[in-house]
Protein backbone atom coordinates (compact mmCIF):
# COMPACT_ATOMS: atom_id res chain seq x y z
CA UNK A 1 0.00 0.00 0.00
CA UNK A 2 1.31 3.47 -0.90
CA UNK A 3 2.29 5.75 2.01
CA UNK A 4 -0.25 8.49 2.77
CA UNK A 5 0.35 11.70 0.89
CA UNK A 6 1.84 14.50 2.98
CA UNK A 7 -0.20 17.72 2.81
CA UNK A 8 1.40 21.17 2.45
CA UNK A 9 0.42 22.03 6.02
CA UNK A 10 2.09 18.91 7.39
CA UNK A 11 5.21 19.58 5.34
CA UNK A 12 5.38 23.14 6.67
CA UNK A 13 4.98 21.97 10.25
CA UNK A 14 7.66 19.31 9.85
CA UNK A 15 10.13 21.67 8.17
CA UNK A 16 9.44 24.63 10.43
CA UNK A 17 11.98 23.88 13.15
CA UNK A 18 15.48 24.74 14.22
CA UNK A 19 17.04 27.69 12.44
CA UNK A 20 14.19 27.84 9.95
CA UNK A 21 11.76 28.37 12.80
CA UNK A 22 14.07 30.96 14.28
CA UNK A 23 14.07 33.01 11.06
CA UNK A 24 10.33 32.61 10.69
CA UNK A 25 9.98 33.75 14.32
CA UNK A 26 12.02 36.87 13.60
CA UNK A 27 9.88 37.71 10.57
CA UNK A 28 6.72 37.18 12.62
CA UNK A 29 7.95 39.76 15.10
CA UNK A 30 8.56 42.20 12.26
CA UNK A 31 5.19 41.22 10.77
CA UNK A 32 4.31 44.26 8.64
CA UNK A 33 7.88 45.22 7.83
CA UNK A 34 10.00 43.36 5.33
CA UNK A 35 13.64 42.68 6.08
CA UNK A 36 16.73 41.83 4.15
CA UNK A 37 19.21 38.97 4.35
CA UNK A 38 21.90 40.93 6.18
CA UNK A 39 19.44 42.16 8.79
CA UNK A 40 18.40 38.58 9.52
CA UNK A 41 22.02 37.47 9.65
CA UNK A 42 22.98 40.19 12.14
CA UNK A 43 19.85 39.89 14.27
CA UNK A 44 20.03 36.13 14.65
CA UNK A 45 23.78 35.67 14.70
CA UNK A 46 24.22 33.61 11.52
CA UNK A 47 27.87 33.11 10.60
CA UNK A 48 27.35 34.37 7.03
CA UNK A 49 24.69 36.03 4.87
CA UNK A 50 24.38 32.86 2.80
CA UNK A 51 23.22 30.91 5.86
CA UNK A 52 20.47 33.45 6.48
CA UNK A 53 19.63 33.50 2.78
CA UNK A 54 19.34 29.69 2.77
CA UNK A 55 16.80 29.75 5.59
CA UNK A 56 14.82 32.59 4.01
CA UNK A 57 14.65 30.80 0.70
CA UNK A 58 13.57 27.64 2.48
CA UNK A 59 10.72 29.57 4.06
CA UNK A 60 9.81 31.03 0.68
CA UNK A 61 9.70 27.53 -0.81
CA UNK A 62 7.38 26.49 2.01
CA UNK A 63 5.10 29.35 0.95
CA UNK A 64 5.07 31.15 4.26
CA UNK A 65 7.33 34.03 3.21
CA UNK A 66 7.31 36.18 0.08
CA UNK A 67 10.10 38.11 -1.55
CA UNK A 68 9.59 41.58 -2.90
CA UNK A 69 11.38 43.04 -5.99
CA UNK A 70 13.97 44.72 -3.77
CA UNK A 71 15.03 41.36 -2.38
CA UNK A 72 13.51 41.79 1.06
CA UNK A 73 11.40 39.09 2.68
CA UNK A 74 8.02 39.39 4.37
CA UNK A 75 5.58 37.03 6.11
CA UNK A 76 2.88 35.88 3.70
CA UNK A 77 1.28 33.16 5.79
CA UNK A 78 1.02 32.72 9.53
CA UNK A 79 1.44 29.10 10.54
CA UNK A 80 0.04 28.14 13.93
CA UNK A 81 2.51 25.63 15.26
CA UNK A 82 2.50 24.58 18.92
CA UNK A 83 5.50 26.78 19.55
CA UNK A 84 4.03 29.88 17.93
CA UNK A 85 0.71 29.27 19.66
CA UNK A 86 2.48 29.44 23.00
CA UNK A 87 3.34 33.10 22.41
CA UNK A 88 1.50 36.30 21.70
CA UNK A 89 2.98 38.69 19.13
CA UNK A 90 2.05 42.27 19.84
CA UNK A 91 3.57 45.39 18.31
CA UNK A 92 7.00 43.92 17.75
CA UNK A 93 7.02 42.30 21.20
CA UNK A 94 6.58 38.66 22.07
CA UNK A 95 5.47 37.22 25.37
CA UNK A 96 4.20 33.84 26.49
CA UNK A 97 0.47 33.32 26.33
CA UNK A 98 0.63 32.03 29.89
CA UNK A 99 1.61 35.51 31.03
CA UNK A 100 -1.95 36.67 30.34
CA UNK A 101 -3.45 33.80 32.36
CA UNK A 102 -0.93 34.31 35.17
CA UNK A 103 -1.57 38.05 35.36
CA UNK A 104 -5.34 37.64 35.30
CA UNK A 105 -5.24 35.03 38.06
CA UNK A 106 -2.86 37.13 40.16
CA UNK A 107 -5.09 40.21 39.80
CA UNK A 108 -8.13 38.16 40.77
CA UNK A 109 -6.41 36.84 43.91
CA UNK A 110 -4.98 40.21 44.97
CA UNK A 111 -8.27 42.00 44.37
CA UNK A 112 -10.14 39.41 46.41
CA UNK A 113 -7.65 39.61 49.30
CA UNK A 114 -7.60 43.42 49.20
CA UNK A 115 -11.37 43.69 49.18
CA UNK A 116 -11.99 41.20 51.97
CA UNK A 117 -8.79 41.77 53.91
CA UNK A 118 -10.71 42.55 57.09
CA UNK A 119 -13.00 39.58 56.84
CA UNK A 120 -10.87 36.84 55.37
CA UNK A 121 -12.15 33.54 56.74
CA UNK A 122 -10.81 29.97 56.32
CA UNK A 123 -13.59 29.26 53.82
CA UNK A 124 -12.54 32.25 51.73
CA UNK A 125 -8.92 31.11 51.84
CA UNK A 126 -10.08 27.65 50.74
CA UNK A 127 -11.98 29.24 47.86
CA UNK A 128 -8.77 30.97 46.84
CA UNK A 129 -6.62 27.83 46.90
CA UNK A 130 -7.44 26.50 43.38
CA UNK A 131 -6.75 29.97 42.01
CA UNK A 132 -3.46 30.24 43.89
CA UNK A 133 -2.37 26.81 42.65
CA UNK A 134 -3.34 27.74 39.09
CA UNK A 135 -1.46 31.01 39.45
CA UNK A 136 1.72 29.24 40.56
CA UNK A 137 1.46 26.85 37.59
CA UNK A 138 0.85 29.70 35.14
CA UNK A 139 3.82 31.70 36.37
CA UNK A 140 6.00 28.60 36.27
CA UNK A 141 4.89 27.90 32.70
CA UNK A 142 5.46 31.53 31.74
CA UNK A 143 9.03 31.43 32.99
CA UNK A 144 9.72 28.04 31.45
CA UNK A 145 8.39 29.03 28.01
CA UNK A 146 10.10 32.43 28.20
CA UNK A 147 13.46 30.85 28.97
CA UNK A 148 13.07 28.66 25.88
CA UNK A 149 12.04 31.51 23.63
CA UNK A 150 13.89 31.42 20.28
CA UNK A 151 16.41 34.23 20.27
CA UNK A 152 19.69 33.68 18.45
CA UNK A 153 21.42 30.87 16.67
CA UNK A 154 23.54 29.02 19.21
Amino acid at each position, binding site marked *: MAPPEITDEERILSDLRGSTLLVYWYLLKKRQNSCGVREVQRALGFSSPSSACYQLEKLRELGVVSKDPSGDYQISKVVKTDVINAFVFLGGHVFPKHLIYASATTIMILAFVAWFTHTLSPIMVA*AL*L*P*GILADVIFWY*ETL*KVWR*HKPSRVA
Partner: protein
Amino acid sequence: MNTTKTRKICFYTLLISLLFLALAFSIAEVNSNQVQRNRDISVSAINSEESEYSSGSLQLSQDMNVWYASINHSTHVVFFTYYSKVYNSPIVTFLGQHYTTANNTEVFIGNTMLLMEAYNDTNDDGVPEADLGEIKYFFLVNSSETFDATPVQKTIIENVSHYVWGIEYGWVDGFFPFARVNITRLSLTYDYYVKGNISYIKTGFKIGKIADFEPFFVQNVSLNELGLSLLYGTAIFTTNPYTVRVNGKSYDSRTAQASVTSTNQTEVVIESEKIYEFIFQENYTLYRDSAAENHTSKTVASPTGSIPPNSLEHLSWCLRLFSEDVFPKMDFKLPAIDLAYANSSLIYRVCYPRWDGLSIEHDPTYVAYLVPVTTGEPGSSGVPPPTGPSLEMIVTVAVALAGTVALTLALVELRRTRRMLTINPLITSSY
Protein backbone atom coordinates in the same frame (compact mmCIF):
# COMPACT_ATOMS: atom_id res chain seq x y z
CA MET B 1 -5.29 16.10 23.73
CA ASN B 2 -7.89 13.38 23.69
CA THR B 3 -11.16 13.46 25.60
CA THR B 4 -10.19 10.78 28.10
CA LYS B 5 -7.13 12.70 29.26
CA THR B 6 -9.11 15.92 29.58
CA ARG B 7 -11.73 14.12 31.65
CA LYS B 8 -9.04 12.69 33.90
CA ILE B 9 -7.51 16.12 34.44
CA CYS B 10 -10.88 17.65 35.25
CA PHE B 11 -11.64 14.83 37.66
CA TYR B 12 -8.33 15.21 39.49
CA THR B 13 -8.74 19.00 39.61
CA LEU B 14 -12.16 18.70 41.21
CA LEU B 15 -10.84 16.08 43.61
CA ILE B 16 -7.97 18.36 44.69
CA SER B 17 -10.36 21.30 45.13
CA LEU B 18 -12.69 19.21 47.28
CA LEU B 19 -9.76 18.02 49.39
CA PHE B 20 -8.65 21.63 49.93
CA LEU B 21 -12.16 22.64 50.93
CA ALA B 22 -12.45 19.70 53.34
CA LEU B 23 -9.07 20.61 54.85
CA ALA B 24 -10.08 24.24 55.31
CA PHE B 25 -13.39 23.28 56.94
CA SER B 26 -11.54 20.93 59.30
CA ILE B 27 -9.09 23.65 60.32
CA ALA B 28 -11.95 26.11 60.87
CA GLU B 29 -13.84 23.55 62.96
CA VAL B 30 -10.80 22.69 65.12
CA ASN B 31 -10.12 26.39 65.64
CA SER B 32 -13.73 27.00 66.58
CA ASN B 33 -13.76 24.11 69.06
CA GLN B 34 -10.52 25.32 70.61
CA VAL B 35 -11.97 28.77 71.19
CA GLN B 36 -15.18 27.21 72.47
CA ARG B 37 -13.23 25.30 75.11
CA ASN B 38 -11.53 28.50 76.19
CA ARG B 39 -14.68 30.47 76.63
CA ASP B 40 -16.45 31.23 79.87
CA ILE B 41 -13.42 30.68 82.04
CA SER B 42 -12.66 33.09 84.81
CA VAL B 43 -9.54 34.95 83.92
CA SER B 44 -7.59 37.79 85.43
CA ALA B 45 -7.62 39.83 82.26
CA ILE B 46 -9.38 39.78 78.95
CA ASN B 47 -7.15 37.91 76.55
CA SER B 48 -8.74 39.77 73.76
CA GLU B 49 -5.91 39.38 71.30
CA GLU B 50 -5.52 35.66 71.68
CA SER B 51 -8.92 34.34 70.77
CA GLU B 52 -11.54 35.01 68.18
CA TYR B 53 -14.13 35.29 70.90
CA SER B 54 -14.35 34.68 74.61
CA SER B 55 -16.46 35.46 77.61
CA GLY B 56 -15.94 35.08 81.30
CA SER B 57 -15.58 36.75 84.63
CA LEU B 58 -13.09 39.09 86.19
CA GLN B 59 -13.03 39.52 89.94
CA LEU B 60 -12.87 43.16 90.97
CA SER B 61 -13.19 42.64 94.71
CA GLN B 62 -14.46 40.02 97.11
CA ASP B 63 -18.02 41.04 96.41
CA MET B 64 -17.95 42.37 92.90
CA ASN B 65 -17.22 40.80 89.54
CA VAL B 66 -17.35 41.81 85.95
CA TRP B 67 -18.79 39.58 83.29
CA TYR B 68 -17.45 40.27 79.82
CA ALA B 69 -17.82 39.18 76.23
CA SER B 70 -15.01 39.87 73.79
CA ILE B 71 -14.99 39.31 70.04
CA ASN B 72 -12.06 39.79 67.71
CA HIS B 73 -13.40 39.54 64.22
CA SER B 74 -12.54 42.43 61.91
CA THR B 75 -13.17 44.79 64.82
CA HIS B 76 -12.77 44.31 68.55
CA VAL B 77 -16.01 44.35 70.48
CA VAL B 78 -16.13 44.22 74.25
CA PHE B 79 -19.24 44.14 76.36
CA PHE B 80 -19.12 44.06 80.11
CA THR B 81 -21.33 44.40 83.11
CA TYR B 82 -20.95 44.23 86.87
CA TYR B 83 -22.44 41.42 88.89
CA SER B 84 -22.18 40.15 92.42
CA LYS B 85 -22.64 36.75 93.96
CA VAL B 86 -23.01 38.25 97.43
CA TYR B 87 -25.33 41.18 96.86
CA ASN B 88 -27.85 42.07 94.22
CA SER B 89 -26.10 42.77 90.95
CA PRO B 90 -25.89 46.41 89.93
CA ILE B 91 -27.35 47.33 86.56
CA VAL B 92 -24.39 48.84 84.75
CA THR B 93 -23.47 47.70 81.28
CA PHE B 94 -21.10 48.96 78.65
CA LEU B 95 -20.65 48.08 75.00
CA GLY B 96 -17.49 49.24 73.23
CA GLN B 97 -16.08 48.71 69.77
CA HIS B 98 -12.59 49.44 68.55
CA TYR B 99 -11.39 49.23 64.96
CA THR B 100 -9.10 50.79 62.43
CA THR B 101 -10.64 51.99 59.21
CA ALA B 102 -9.14 51.38 55.77
CA ASN B 103 -7.59 54.87 55.86
CA ASN B 104 -5.85 54.08 59.16
CA THR B 105 -8.11 56.02 61.46
CA GLU B 106 -8.45 54.37 64.82
CA VAL B 107 -11.95 54.49 66.16
CA PHE B 108 -13.36 53.67 69.54
CA ILE B 109 -17.07 54.03 70.17
CA GLY B 110 -18.85 52.90 73.28
CA ASN B 111 -22.25 53.46 74.73
CA THR B 112 -24.10 52.80 77.91
CA MET B 113 -27.62 53.27 79.11
CA LEU B 114 -27.57 56.07 81.63
CA LEU B 115 -31.11 56.44 82.72
CA MET B 116 -34.75 55.55 82.13
CA GLU B 117 -37.35 58.26 82.09
CA ALA B 118 -41.11 58.24 82.16
CA TYR B 119 -42.65 61.05 80.16
CA ASN B 120 -46.02 62.47 79.46
CA ASP B 121 -46.22 63.28 75.80
CA THR B 122 -48.41 66.36 76.10
CA ASN B 123 -47.80 67.68 72.58
CA ASP B 124 -48.16 64.23 71.05
CA ASP B 125 -44.89 64.30 69.15
CA GLY B 126 -43.75 61.03 70.69
CA VAL B 127 -40.63 62.37 72.38
CA PRO B 128 -39.91 63.87 75.83
CA GLU B 129 -39.20 67.58 75.91
CA ALA B 130 -37.51 68.70 79.08
CA ASP B 131 -38.31 72.35 78.51
CA LEU B 132 -42.03 71.56 78.33
CA GLY B 133 -41.87 69.61 81.54
CA GLU B 134 -42.79 66.38 79.80
CA ILE B 135 -40.25 64.28 81.67
CA LYS B 136 -42.30 63.32 84.68
CA TYR B 137 -39.96 60.95 86.41
CA PHE B 138 -36.55 59.52 85.93
CA PHE B 139 -36.08 55.98 86.90
CA LEU B 140 -32.91 54.55 88.37
CA VAL B 141 -32.55 50.86 87.72
CA ASN B 142 -30.58 49.85 90.72
CA SER B 143 -29.89 46.16 91.06
CA SER B 144 -31.30 42.74 90.35
CA GLU B 145 -31.83 39.63 92.38
CA THR B 146 -30.64 37.30 89.67
CA PHE B 147 -28.09 37.68 86.93
CA ASP B 148 -27.68 35.26 84.04
CA ALA B 149 -25.21 35.57 81.24
CA THR B 150 -25.24 33.74 77.93
CA PRO B 151 -21.63 33.33 76.81
CA VAL B 152 -20.62 34.22 73.29
CA GLN B 153 -21.72 31.61 70.80
CA LYS B 154 -20.62 31.55 67.22
CA THR B 155 -22.99 30.46 64.52
CA ILE B 156 -22.62 30.73 60.78
CA ILE B 157 -25.67 31.91 58.90
CA GLU B 158 -25.44 32.17 55.14
CA ASN B 159 -21.66 32.06 55.32
CA VAL B 160 -21.57 34.95 57.78
CA SER B 161 -20.22 34.42 61.30
CA HIS B 162 -22.62 35.63 63.97
CA TYR B 163 -21.42 36.08 67.54
CA VAL B 164 -24.33 36.11 69.92
CA TRP B 165 -24.36 36.77 73.65
CA GLY B 166 -26.62 38.27 76.23
CA ILE B 167 -27.44 38.95 79.83
CA GLU B 168 -30.65 38.87 81.78
CA TYR B 169 -31.44 40.50 85.08
CA GLY B 170 -34.33 39.01 86.99
CA TRP B 171 -36.53 40.96 89.39
CA VAL B 172 -34.90 44.32 89.03
CA ASP B 173 -35.47 46.92 91.69
CA GLY B 174 -35.36 50.56 90.88
CA PHE B 175 -36.35 53.92 92.16
CA PHE B 176 -38.49 56.70 90.93
CA PRO B 177 -37.99 59.81 93.04
CA PHE B 178 -41.31 59.02 94.70
CA ALA B 179 -41.55 55.26 94.65
CA ARG B 180 -39.77 51.97 94.75
CA VAL B 181 -40.53 49.66 91.88
CA ASN B 182 -39.76 46.17 90.72
CA ILE B 183 -39.46 45.10 87.14
CA THR B 184 -39.91 41.46 86.29
CA ARG B 185 -36.84 41.31 84.10
CA LEU B 186 -34.43 43.27 81.98
CA SER B 187 -32.52 41.50 79.23
CA LEU B 188 -30.00 42.59 76.66
CA THR B 189 -28.95 40.42 73.73
CA TYR B 190 -26.32 41.15 71.11
CA ASP B 191 -25.62 39.76 67.69
CA TYR B 192 -22.34 40.88 66.15
CA TYR B 193 -21.57 40.11 62.52
CA VAL B 194 -19.61 41.48 59.60
CA LYS B 195 -20.82 41.70 56.02
CA GLY B 196 -18.30 42.99 53.52
CA ASN B 197 -16.63 45.96 55.12
CA ILE B 198 -19.45 46.78 57.48
CA SER B 199 -19.91 45.40 60.97
CA TYR B 200 -23.23 45.26 62.74
CA ILE B 201 -24.10 44.93 66.39
CA LYS B 202 -27.76 44.17 66.54
CA THR B 203 -29.04 44.59 70.04
CA GLY B 204 -32.18 43.23 71.60
CA PHE B 205 -33.62 45.16 74.51
CA LYS B 206 -36.38 43.63 76.57
CA ILE B 207 -37.80 45.20 79.67
CA GLY B 208 -40.45 43.42 81.69
CA LYS B 209 -43.47 45.10 83.12
CA ILE B 210 -43.42 46.99 86.38
CA ALA B 211 -44.68 44.38 88.80
CA ASP B 212 -44.42 46.14 92.10
CA PHE B 213 -45.01 49.80 92.72
CA GLU B 214 -44.60 51.26 96.21
CA PRO B 215 -45.10 55.03 96.39
CA PHE B 216 -43.26 56.65 99.28
CA PHE B 217 -45.34 59.73 99.84
CA VAL B 218 -47.70 60.46 96.99
CA GLN B 219 -50.47 57.95 96.51
CA ASN B 220 -52.11 59.07 93.27
CA VAL B 221 -49.29 58.21 90.96
CA SER B 222 -49.83 56.15 87.85
CA LEU B 223 -47.68 55.15 84.94
CA ASN B 224 -50.67 54.87 82.66
CA GLU B 225 -50.48 57.01 79.55
CA LEU B 226 -46.78 57.60 80.12
CA GLY B 227 -44.06 56.85 77.67
CA LEU B 228 -40.63 55.43 78.41
CA SER B 229 -37.37 56.83 77.18
CA LEU B 230 -33.95 55.26 77.53
CA LEU B 231 -31.14 57.74 77.83
CA TYR B 232 -27.81 56.68 76.37
CA GLY B 233 -24.41 58.30 76.58
CA THR B 234 -21.64 57.61 74.12
CA ALA B 235 -17.87 57.71 74.36
CA ILE B 236 -16.27 58.45 71.00
CA PHE B 237 -12.54 58.63 70.39
CA THR B 238 -10.83 58.76 67.03
CA THR B 239 -7.28 59.48 65.91
CA ASN B 240 -8.62 62.06 63.45
CA PRO B 241 -11.16 64.73 64.41
CA TYR B 242 -14.71 63.45 64.12
CA THR B 243 -18.10 65.04 63.90
CA VAL B 244 -21.41 63.64 65.04
CA ARG B 245 -24.07 64.27 62.45
CA VAL B 246 -27.75 64.15 63.15
CA ASN B 247 -29.97 64.28 60.07
CA GLY B 248 -26.94 65.43 58.08
CA LYS B 249 -26.05 68.35 60.37
CA SER B 250 -23.26 68.59 62.92
CA TYR B 251 -24.40 67.96 66.45
CA ASP B 252 -22.81 68.11 69.88
CA SER B 253 -24.82 67.41 73.00
CA ARG B 254 -22.51 69.64 75.02
CA THR B 255 -23.37 72.73 72.98
CA ALA B 256 -26.77 71.94 71.47
CA GLN B 257 -29.52 74.43 72.26
CA ALA B 258 -32.70 72.65 71.14
CA SER B 259 -34.23 70.53 73.90
CA VAL B 260 -34.68 67.63 71.47
CA THR B 261 -33.59 66.95 67.91
CA SER B 262 -35.58 64.15 66.34
CA THR B 263 -33.23 61.97 64.41
CA ASN B 264 -33.71 59.71 61.45
CA GLN B 265 -30.01 59.41 60.82
CA THR B 266 -27.29 59.54 63.46
CA GLU B 267 -23.75 58.99 62.33
CA VAL B 268 -20.14 59.72 63.13
CA VAL B 269 -18.14 61.16 60.24
CA ILE B 270 -14.54 62.07 59.62
CA GLU B 271 -13.97 64.50 56.77
CA SER B 272 -17.38 63.75 55.23
CA GLU B 273 -16.82 60.01 55.42
CA LYS B 274 -19.11 57.97 57.56
CA ILE B 275 -17.38 55.64 60.00
CA TYR B 276 -20.22 54.74 62.32
CA GLU B 277 -23.97 54.80 62.34
CA PHE B 278 -26.73 54.29 64.86
CA ILE B 279 -29.78 52.61 63.40
CA PHE B 280 -32.87 52.50 65.53
CA GLN B 281 -35.54 50.23 64.17
CA GLU B 282 -38.77 52.13 64.04
CA ASN B 283 -41.07 49.55 65.55
CA TYR B 284 -41.09 48.15 69.02
CA THR B 285 -43.33 45.61 70.61
CA LEU B 286 -45.44 46.33 73.67
CA TYR B 287 -46.93 43.39 75.55
CA ARG B 288 -50.28 44.12 77.11
CA ASP B 289 -51.74 41.09 78.90
CA SER B 290 -49.68 38.79 76.66
CA ALA B 291 -51.04 40.47 73.55
CA ALA B 292 -48.32 41.99 71.40
CA GLU B 293 -48.83 45.49 70.06
CA ASN B 294 -46.53 47.14 67.56
CA HIS B 295 -45.80 50.81 68.01
CA THR B 296 -43.40 53.26 66.46
CA SER B 297 -40.40 54.30 68.48
CA LYS B 298 -38.69 57.66 68.17
CA THR B 299 -35.10 58.67 68.69
CA VAL B 300 -33.87 62.09 69.67
CA ALA B 301 -30.47 63.59 70.20
CA SER B 302 -30.46 65.52 73.43
CA PRO B 303 -28.38 68.30 74.93
CA THR B 304 -26.57 67.67 78.18
CA GLY B 305 -28.79 70.23 79.91
CA SER B 306 -31.92 68.18 79.26
CA ILE B 307 -30.94 65.52 81.76
CA PRO B 308 -32.58 65.64 85.18
CA PRO B 309 -29.97 67.08 87.53
CA ASN B 310 -30.92 64.77 90.39
CA SER B 311 -29.86 61.76 88.40
CA LEU B 312 -26.18 62.68 88.46
CA GLU B 313 -25.34 60.38 91.34
CA HIS B 314 -26.12 57.35 89.28
CA LEU B 315 -23.45 58.23 86.79
CA SER B 316 -20.67 58.19 89.31
CA TRP B 317 -20.06 54.58 88.33
CA CYS B 318 -16.66 54.49 86.85
CA LEU B 319 -15.96 51.74 84.40
CA ARG B 320 -12.60 50.88 85.78
CA LEU B 321 -11.88 48.22 83.21
CA PHE B 322 -11.25 50.85 80.64
CA SER B 323 -7.59 50.41 80.07
CA GLU B 324 -5.13 48.88 77.73
CA ASP B 325 -6.05 45.51 79.21
CA VAL B 326 -9.46 45.74 77.66
CA PHE B 327 -8.48 47.10 74.30
CA PRO B 328 -4.78 46.22 74.00
CA LYS B 329 -4.77 46.79 70.27
CA MET B 330 -5.27 50.49 70.71
CA ASP B 331 -2.28 52.55 69.72
CA PHE B 332 -3.60 55.76 71.16
CA LYS B 333 -4.12 56.34 74.83
CA LEU B 334 -7.66 56.74 75.93
CA PRO B 335 -8.26 59.48 78.40
CA ALA B 336 -9.87 58.37 81.64
CA ILE B 337 -13.43 57.61 80.78
CA ASP B 338 -16.12 57.80 83.38
CA LEU B 339 -18.97 58.11 80.89
CA ALA B 340 -20.14 61.22 82.67
CA TYR B 341 -22.63 62.60 80.23
CA ALA B 342 -21.10 66.06 80.56
CA ASN B 343 -18.25 64.72 78.43
CA SER B 344 -20.41 62.93 75.90
CA SER B 345 -20.69 64.52 72.46
CA LEU B 346 -23.74 62.44 71.71
CA ILE B 347 -26.50 61.80 74.18
CA TYR B 348 -29.59 60.27 72.73
CA ARG B 349 -32.91 59.01 73.89
CA VAL B 350 -34.72 56.04 72.45
CA CYS B 351 -38.36 56.79 73.10
CA TYR B 352 -41.33 54.48 73.42
CA PRO B 353 -44.39 56.76 73.40
CA ARG B 354 -46.72 53.95 74.53
CA TRP B 355 -45.47 52.20 77.62
CA ASP B 356 -47.86 52.29 80.59
CA GLY B 357 -45.32 50.38 82.67
CA LEU B 358 -45.64 47.32 80.46
CA SER B 359 -43.13 45.00 78.84
CA ILE B 360 -41.26 46.28 75.77
CA GLU B 361 -38.99 44.70 73.16
CA HIS B 362 -36.84 46.69 70.77
CA ASP B 363 -33.76 46.01 68.63
CA PRO B 364 -31.53 48.89 67.55
CA THR B 365 -28.34 48.27 65.54
CA TYR B 366 -24.89 49.81 65.70
CA VAL B 367 -23.01 49.88 62.42
CA ALA B 368 -19.26 50.36 61.98
CA TYR B 369 -17.77 51.09 58.57
CA LEU B 370 -14.33 49.53 58.18
CA VAL B 371 -14.07 51.27 54.85
CA PRO B 372 -15.53 54.75 55.39
CA VAL B 373 -18.26 55.74 52.97
CA THR B 374 -19.05 59.20 51.73
CA THR B 375 -22.18 60.41 53.44
CA GLY B 376 -25.16 60.68 51.15
CA GLU B 377 -23.74 58.10 48.76
CA PRO B 378 -26.42 55.83 47.34
CA GLY B 379 -26.38 52.63 49.33
CA SER B 380 -24.31 54.16 52.11
CA SER B 381 -26.91 53.46 54.74
CA GLY B 382 -25.94 50.78 57.18
CA VAL B 383 -29.40 49.26 57.20
CA PRO B 384 -28.71 45.54 57.20
CA PRO B 385 -29.01 44.19 53.69
CA PRO B 386 -31.98 42.01 52.85
CA THR B 387 -31.57 38.34 53.49
CA GLY B 388 -30.26 36.22 50.64
CA PRO B 389 -26.79 35.37 49.41
CA SER B 390 -24.42 38.09 50.57
CA LEU B 391 -22.04 39.79 48.17
CA GLU B 392 -19.21 38.20 50.12
CA MET B 393 -20.62 34.71 49.53
CA ILE B 394 -21.32 35.35 45.84
CA VAL B 395 -17.80 36.68 45.27
CA THR B 396 -16.28 33.76 47.21
CA VAL B 397 -18.17 31.19 45.14
CA ALA B 398 -17.26 33.05 41.94
CA VAL B 399 -13.59 33.12 42.92
CA ALA B 400 -13.67 29.41 43.81
CA LEU B 401 -15.24 28.56 40.43
CA ALA B 402 -12.86 30.82 38.52
CA GLY B 403 -9.94 29.31 40.42
CA THR B 404 -11.08 25.76 39.62
CA VAL B 405 -11.45 26.59 35.91
CA ALA B 406 -8.02 28.28 35.97
CA LEU B 407 -6.50 25.26 37.67
CA THR B 408 -7.99 22.92 35.06
CA LEU B 409 -6.64 25.14 32.29
CA ALA B 410 -3.25 25.34 34.03
CA LEU B 411 -2.99 21.55 34.23
CA VAL B 412 -3.98 21.16 30.58
CA GLU B 413 -1.44 23.82 29.59
CA LEU B 414 1.21 22.20 31.78
CA ARG B 415 0.93 18.96 29.84
CA ARG B 416 0.74 20.72 26.51
CA THR B 417 3.85 22.81 27.17
CA ARG B 418 5.80 19.80 28.38
CA ARG B 419 4.87 17.88 25.22
CA MET B 420 5.68 20.87 23.03
CA LEU B 421 9.11 21.40 24.57
CA THR B 422 9.89 17.68 24.27
CA ILE B 423 8.87 17.32 20.63
CA ASN B 424 9.94 20.68 19.32
CA PRO B 425 12.62 22.35 21.40
CA LEU B 426 12.30 26.05 20.77
CA ILE B 427 15.90 26.92 20.89
CA THR B 428 17.98 25.70 18.08
CA SER B 429 21.54 24.57 18.16
CA SER B 430 21.79 23.64 14.51
CA TYR B 431 23.74 25.51 11.92
